[in-house]
């Protein structure tokens, strides 16, 4: 039945691609045309709104917008963790699509990334 499972995962990968490509194109257009710093309609982080604390994802939208304008240093200031992980996420997505199944990652690597995210969150709220 493994064959069935792979076929279903390939279908899921095709569906994900069919939604991700137009979605990504729309997002790129939106972020390039309407920078989050100048337009207020972008969602506000609920964690920051209700607690005043910066979450690990705070600034990711602005960082992505800055990257799309080629401003790497500015993107890094908005959310360094997101900028550092973005290439890895991209590679993960590409490998997942090419294989038709989610790649296996070492537990130690995932634990290390989660640890870095936790430290990043603490530090950005202290500094």
């Amino acid at each position, binding site marked *: 039945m493994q064959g069935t499972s792979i076929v279903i995962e390939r279908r899921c990968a095709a569906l994900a691609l069919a939604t991700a490509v137009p979605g990504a194109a729309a997002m790129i257009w939106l972020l390039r045309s309407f920078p989050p710093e100048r337009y207020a309609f972008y969602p*506000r982080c*609920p964690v920051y709104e*209700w607690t005043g604390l910066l*979450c690990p994802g705070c600034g990711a939208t602005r960082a992505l917008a800055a990257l799309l304008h080629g401003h790497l240093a500015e993107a890094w200031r908005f959310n360094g963790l997101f900028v550092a992980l973005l290439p890895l996420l991209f590679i993960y997505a590409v490998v997942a699509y090419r294989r038709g199944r989610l790649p296996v990652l070492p537990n130690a690597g995932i634990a290390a*990334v989660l640890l870095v*995210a936790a430290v990043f969150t603490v530090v950005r709220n202290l500094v």
Partner: protein
Amino acid sequence: MHYQVSRNGQTYGPYTIEDLQRYLASGNVLPTDLAKSEEMTEWVPVSVLLQPPAEAAAPVSEFATPSFANPDPAYPQPVAMAASPYPDAPNLHWGLVVLFSVLTCCFAMIFMPVWNLIICLWLKRVQPNATAAIYYVAVLVLLVLYFVVGGAATLAILSHSSGAPFGAARYGPYFGLRLVVLLAIWVLRLVGRYTERALLLEHFNTVEPVGLTLDPVMTFFFGGVYFQYHLNRINALKQTQRFGAGARY
């Protein structure tokens, strides 16, 4: 009394005698599977265990404790695992579920309800009567509503002042509405979570009996991540059954 079931060196359970009778009738447990309670000293075939008392008194010494290191190659393959007609659950590592959730923290961890929905759609494939997906669809709709109202609140603040700092919207207009929507999201997520738990328990203790147990308190606090942790383990178990001990997840 509860019994463990052993097949090809892998143990499942514990199950009650009623569970064993039901699984035997449904074909998920084979008469040749071995079973043992804590009080028993030897493994006995399920067929012997479920015999009427007079027959069960017959000697069973020929069914010695199985060798787990060298399972008999002629032993029937597990019906519920290797030959399972059910597709594996989506196998994203639970650590990545945590990571993607915290990275989408600014969008109310939207990855989590999306992933819950994906799991529920898989549940719908393996259990056609599964209904948990509707709760997560409702959660996603309410999240969109929450952000739309939040955007409207921010724009209302901006129209009355020269600038609105981050966080200003929490004291601004629509505060009550946003709070109610957040509470509704929280309640729906909990209902969806426990419905999903019941479906997972039903599936992995009947049609694919791996003896899954899900702690209700862990479900309350960790929900989707906790489920994914168990689904990863079940997928690893199924992979091991298919490809031998070298398989890993």
